[in-house]
């Protein structure tokens, strides 16, 4: 009796997480795109008649936190480009939240093998931040 109860609970948990992860991905995409779209309108209102030049790549070597600070300042001052960038960052964060959510789900299931595997993936993403500016 007790065993069957925990089993149904576990099953419910897994299905539940599938729904939550599915929703997270869907709303994450729509929210970030709406932000980027608004940014795009603002950008076009101010710069629509400028002449574009994307034929030459200007390499940056900016720390990710510096980028975030710039975007934050830009958004406050109503810069269209920064609002688009903010939307893009939200989009990038969607899969990150997805990984964190899986970590949580495996913890609840007490599946420590997969807690470790998920933690390794998170570790690699964190390492990639430091790789980015160690050239």
């Amino acid at each position: 009796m007790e065993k069957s109860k925990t089993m149904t609970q576990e099953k419910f948990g897994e299905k539940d997480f599938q729904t939550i992860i599915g929703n997270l991905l869907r709303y994450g995409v729509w929210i970030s795109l709406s932000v980027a779209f608004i940014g795009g309108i603002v950008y076009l209102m101010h710069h629509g008649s400028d002449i574009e030049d994307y034929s030459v790549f200007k390499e940056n070597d900016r720390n990710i936190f510096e980028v975030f600070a710039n975007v934050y300042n830009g958004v406050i001052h109503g810069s269209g480009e920064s609002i688009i960038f903010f939307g893009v960052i939200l989009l990038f964060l969607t899969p990150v939240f997805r990984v964190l959510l899986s970590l949580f789900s495996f913890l609840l299931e007490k599946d420590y093998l997969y807690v470790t595997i998920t933690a390794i993936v998170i570790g690699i993403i964190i390492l990639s931040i430091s790789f980015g500016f160690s050239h």
Partner: protein
Amino acid sequence: MTVLTFTLIMILGAFLAGFIGSLSGLGGGIIIIPLLTVVLGVDIHYAIGAALVSVIATSSGSAAAYVKEGITNMRLGIFLEIATTIGAVGGALLSAIAPTSFIAVLFGLTLIFSAINSLRKKEEHIVLESSPLAKKLHLQGTYPTHDGQVVHYGTKNVIGGFSMMGLAGMMSGLLGIGSGAFKVIAMDNIMRIPFKVSTTTSNFMMGVTAMASSVIYIQKGYIEPGICMPVVIGVLFGAMAGAKILVRTNPKKLRIFFACLIFVLAVNMIYNGLNGKI
């Protein structure tokens, strides 16, 4: 060209790329890059950045539905993400130092390979017995069919699939693509996972794989808001329109047509790359 004209052309082009990408099964990212570089003369680094952003948008959008239906094998996906994220970080670092012509030629070759691969006949094969390592990692799974039945499947050759996934991740980081073709080969042909599960799981993994290289892309300045905005919006809506049509038509003839089109684009890119025009 003014920014406004450029943006409108981009939205239209990206819509087409997303549309063709979803009908041909190649993904929008892989088509937007030649469009930006060959047709509009945008530097390949910006093109790669914009493609990566659109890959995250489309893969997250479609993964949402599959995860809910319970087709995606999340354990398999997360395990293989170790390989794809390491590969992606390596690829992104490589893309910052590799010469542009090298990237263009490699991209062209990948495009040809993916186009040929999309024409390959897909047979459903299900193995029931898993290899010992796959059992240890709980990589076997189930998925529901249309008539409500549950199919059980096993997994083979974990190490082979893992290595191929590392390569897939590297191509993704280097070229800003989802590299679905490589991922499906790793899961379909090497690990013997059913087609339905491998395509949806590949989609599920793309977001995180792309994320691993995106941090480096942001820091190196690949993400240009003025290009990303029209590209993402266009590709996403194009992919949605393509998916709607896909349900109603048999895309076999379309696939051959698009594969030829992509072949021409790829040859163009290789030619321009070799001549140093990209």
